[in-house]
């Protein structure tokens, strides 16, 4: 039987999703449901003096209006930060309370203050306009770099500082800097991005008055985790009375990790008003209240020798957390960032210092890549600048500092188990015709255009494990994953996973894995996920962990099934277990070639007897009937995908418009389960990263109003902004899991911003420019360049 793992199987879920048959949260309606609309703060920072709901309560169709008073009285807990981070001085991070409905003060535009439930959406909306909130407007703290100098947002949190964190050795770095031939410096802004999942957030809550069970349908990347948080911290209901279902989810990119205010409020209120509740965000609500990504201000330096050896690295970053610390908000700029700061290079001394600040803006949390894009952008800008200043080819300087032996113990944290960075960069150079660039540059020049080339080599740490390590670093939960595999009596297989697919294609790739392990056809395997009532507890999908952690739990559960099957087959075939081989779905007696298929064995496991068998069971003594196995997999290490990307851009100096002419990506994701799905992930990631580099400009004005809160002003890149992506792969197997796989979901978004920005800056003759490199900024840079060229001439 040909192996399914490794083949370009078309996505099973696409037929359903592309023909409009997906079932998203907003598609769910429950008889007698009410519609929720939230009263949101129009101010970035204000004291809430009084809320008058009297007029709104009398409006047509209104069922109930609830505020922060009621939710506090019912002792419903708030939103949480999932990782505890310690400052350099040993003190614990400072986290403000984040109630689901703000009671005393509002801290960002869009923060929920109250909620109206009505018989129709229109009536709920109309009543929201009648709720009168008396605010005392205060001066907001908006700017990341200035946040520590602003007024104190949260009582007791001095300088708006959550923590001042250090990873690395300052002294070693300073010593190395003293010996350097040259010090390369950059000042960078990693621009804030709005994740913009295609499906806005939504929830539908159904409270069963008889069983007292709450069912929450919601747009979540991790329904089990959401239930745990809502139960343990929210106190909404005990876990056994709370079912969380995340049906089809239309993209997350990190923004659907958190349990949000609306989910907690609607779950709590459904029980209170004894009616089902439906809430669906409008697009502008999503812009205002989904967790955002990035938002770093960084100063970084790289100490080098004249022949291009890296000696030491330092990074001083201010990271904006927004108004509150959320689930991965505090870890994204620390342990997901600092350990990756030195990139794919041998750098003997390094440190990263991060000051995380609160501001009166939407909370910032994980966004595709989470911390690793920020780290990669910093080191890859430094390396490119070092190449320019030292006059060494940009690929050569990288090669000189790549490790060539693996496992590679980095200076800071990670021991990278496998990789071949040299092979990746070589392949990328060939595929992109790096050598022919100067000819293309001249050709562009002849047309009055500026052409630039940019390279970035990256690695990332994904999978985020093992649990004991992440918990010792402050994580509130263990980051293993689980699976339950049920081999049904009549031969089909249901694979339950704690991971969650919201675009990743698990229905297909996980089925490929299980089908190969069990030797059955792809058509009889179904992947089930997204429901706390179905299958074992799981941690969900983020951090490119689904395959490298969740996929392995499936492998292990399948292997337990085969192991049991072998014991049963041995009994049925009347031989010893060690005389049997399992291959292509058959248990074969090596000597006699007598065999039983896995389906026959499964059937026997459920129906262990027959009319003429003289009471003889096919099951060995002590073996339980049934064929269901469970596995919880906790890997021994992160997985470390890596690669090199090369881009070419062409600039029209008269308009400042940038055209991405060529984009080549060579990635090492270890063993690839489905190239088609992986290419899709890489395409999406690159597109998202180019979006950050050139287009996406989240802009708050000085009063904290988000002025890019719709697609009329926030630029999402479109297909015509991209060239055909040229993809290649190299392969070194991960050693931390039996499949040898590494994560692939975030790599594109990690590698592409520096690749593109390096190319843009190259086209501009080394002139620095901030992301997003919009046409006007580039036009201005071109003017400056022209002026200095004229002067030089």
């Amino acid at each position, binding site marked *: 039987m040909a192996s399914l793992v490794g083949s370009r199987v078309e996505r099973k879920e696409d037929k359903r999703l592309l023909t409009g048959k997906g079932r998203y949260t907003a598609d769910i309606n429950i008889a007698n449901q009410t519609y929720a609309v939230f009263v949101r703060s129009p101010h970035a920072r204000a004291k809430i003096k009084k809320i008058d709901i009297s007029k709104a309560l009398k409006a047509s169709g209104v069922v109930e209006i609830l505020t922060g008073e009621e939710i506090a009285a019912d002792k419903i807990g708030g939103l949480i930060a999932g990782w505890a981070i310690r400052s350099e001085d040993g003190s614990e991070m400072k986290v403000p309370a984040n109630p689901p409905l703000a009671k005393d003060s509002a801290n960002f535009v869009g923060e929920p203050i109250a909620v109206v439930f009505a018989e129709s959406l229109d009536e709920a909306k109309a009543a929201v306009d009648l709720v009168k909130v008396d605010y005392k407007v205060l001066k907001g703290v908006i700017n990341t770099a200035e946040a520590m100098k602003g007024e104190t947002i949260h009582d007791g949190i001095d300088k708006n500082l959550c923590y001042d964190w250090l990873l690395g050795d300052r002294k070693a770095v300073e010593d190395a800097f003293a010996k350097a031939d040259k010090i390369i410096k950059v000042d960078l802004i990693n621009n804030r991005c709005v994740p913009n999942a295609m499906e806005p957030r939504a929830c539908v809550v159904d409270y069963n008055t008889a069983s007292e069970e709450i069912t929450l349908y919601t747009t979540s990347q991790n329904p089990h985790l959401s239930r745990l948080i809502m139960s343990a911290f929210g106190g909404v209901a005990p876990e056994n009375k709370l079912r969380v279902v995340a049906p089809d989810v239309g993209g997350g990119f990190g923004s659907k990790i958190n349990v949000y205010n609306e989910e907690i409020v609607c779950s709590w209120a459904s029980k209170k008003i004894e009616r089902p509740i439906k809430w669906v965000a409008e697009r502008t609500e999503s812009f205002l209240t989904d967790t955002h990504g990035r938002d770093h201000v960084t100063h970084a330096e790289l100490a080098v020798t004249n022949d291009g050896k890296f000696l030491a690295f330092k990074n001083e970053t201010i990271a904006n957390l927004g108004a509150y610390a959320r689930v991965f908000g505090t870890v994204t700029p620390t342990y997901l960032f600092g350990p990756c700061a030195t990139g794919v290079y041998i750098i003997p001394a390094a440190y990263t210092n991060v000051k995380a600040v609160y501001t009166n803006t939407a909370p910032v949390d994980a966004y595709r890549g989470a911390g690793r894009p920020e780290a990669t952008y910093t080191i890859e800008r430094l390396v490119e600048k070092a190449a320019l200043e030292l006059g060494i080819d940009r690929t050569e300087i990288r090669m000189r500092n790549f490790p060539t032996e693996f496992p590679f113990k980095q200076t800071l944290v990670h021991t990278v188990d496998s990789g071949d960075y040299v092979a990746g960069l070589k392949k990328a150079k060939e595929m992109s015709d790096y050598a022919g660039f100067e000819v293309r540059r001249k050709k562009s020049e002849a047309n009055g255009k500026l052409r630039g080339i940019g390279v970035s080599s990256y690695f990332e740490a994904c999978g985020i494990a093992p649990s004991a390590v992440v918990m010792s670093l402050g994580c509130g939960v263990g980051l293993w994953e689980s699976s339950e595999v049920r081999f049904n009596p009549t031969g089909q297989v249901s694979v339950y996973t704690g991971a969650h697919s919201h675009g990743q294609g698990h229905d297909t790739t996980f089925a490929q894995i299980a089908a190969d392990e069990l030797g059955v056809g792809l058509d009889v395997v179904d992947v089930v996920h997204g429901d706390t009532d179905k299958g074992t507890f799981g941690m969900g999908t983020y951090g490119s962990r689904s395959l490298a952690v969740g996929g392995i739990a499936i492998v292990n559960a399948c292997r337990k099934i085969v192991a049991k099957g072998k014991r049963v087959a041995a009994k049925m075939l009347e031989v010893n277990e060690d005389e049997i081989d399992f291959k292509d779905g058959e248990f074969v007696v090596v000597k006699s070639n007598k065999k039983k298929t896995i389906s026959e064995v499964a059937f026997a496991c459920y129906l262990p007897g027959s009319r003429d068998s003289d009471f003889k069971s096919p099951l060995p003594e002590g073996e339980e009937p049934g064929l269901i196995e469970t596995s919880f997999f906790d890997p021994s290490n992160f997985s470390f995908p890596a690669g090199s990307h090369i881009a070419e851009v062409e600039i029209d100096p008269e*308009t*400042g418009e940038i055209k991405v002419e060529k984009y080549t990506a060579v990635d090492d994701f270890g063993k690839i389960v489905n190239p088609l799905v992986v290419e899709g992930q890489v395409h999406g990631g690159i597109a998202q990263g180019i979006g950050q580099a050139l287009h996406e400009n989240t802009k708050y004005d000085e009063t904290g109003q988000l002025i890019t809160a719709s697609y009329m002003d*926030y*630029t999402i890149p479109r297909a015509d902004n991209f060239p055909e992506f040229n993809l290649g792969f190299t392969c070194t197997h991960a050693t931390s899991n039996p499949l040898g796989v590494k994560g692939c979901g975030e790599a594109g978004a990690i590698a592409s911003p520096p690749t593109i920005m390096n190319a843009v800056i190259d086209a501009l003759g080394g002139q620095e420019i901030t992301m997003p490199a919009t*046409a006007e900024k580039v036009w201005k840079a071109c003017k400056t360049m022209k002026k200095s060229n004229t002067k030089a001439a």
Partner: protein
Amino acid sequence: MKTFNYHSPKDVKTASKLSSTSSIFLAGGMTSIPSMKLGLATYKDVIDIKNIKKLSGIKVSGNSVTIGATTKHAEVASSKEIQKKIPSLSKLAGGIGDAQVRNRGTVGGSIANNDPSACYPSACMALNAIIHTNNRKIEAKNFFKDMFETVLKKGELIEAVEFKIPEKSNYQKHPNPASRYAIVGIYLAKHKKEVNVAVTGAKSVVYIDKDLSKALSSSFFSSAIEGMELDSSEMNSDIHASADYRASLVVTYAKKAVEAC
């Protein structure tokens, strides 16, 4: 959205009669429906004019192309006759928004709405268009008053727009990266006796740039306007483009338009 009465008259007279101070004509709905959905505007009566047959269609005569008010952008883009007589007008229509917008949005709606960054008003200005309404004919240069404001009176309905066929013409747009409306749009038309450079997106309302038009009237080459610096004091400035940038784009795209003619 607040509730309203929906009307679908079959002729212009009925449509006009139905209109009041709290009514709106509904053409493609690409602007009007979002503004109603967002609660920016509310109406008692919505008068759908799409079923008035007379308002739709394309007619070509000796020296002009007349386009019915409810003719869709997609129809103008794909019309063989317009592609032959005024190719730049088809190009303009084909570059508006996206396929969905082009399949619903109309010429009349675009002009009546007079968005400062809409494309069609510049074509009207450069092509010396005459706007035919149910009770008069208005020259384009007298039609567009200020942003989102025209000389149309309450109940006055655009029936058709008559564009003069130029010797040469071209439309160039620097799109807003997010919405793809014009940050700057240049409609250049060379008529027998004059050259018109109409500019949209740059100021609060579409206008003919006199300096560019004059320079190109005497010499129809991009070198005639090379290096020209425009006064940016009245130009729009927003997160997508400052006034200075817009001023520079006007000249750049005017040059591109000449070169494309």
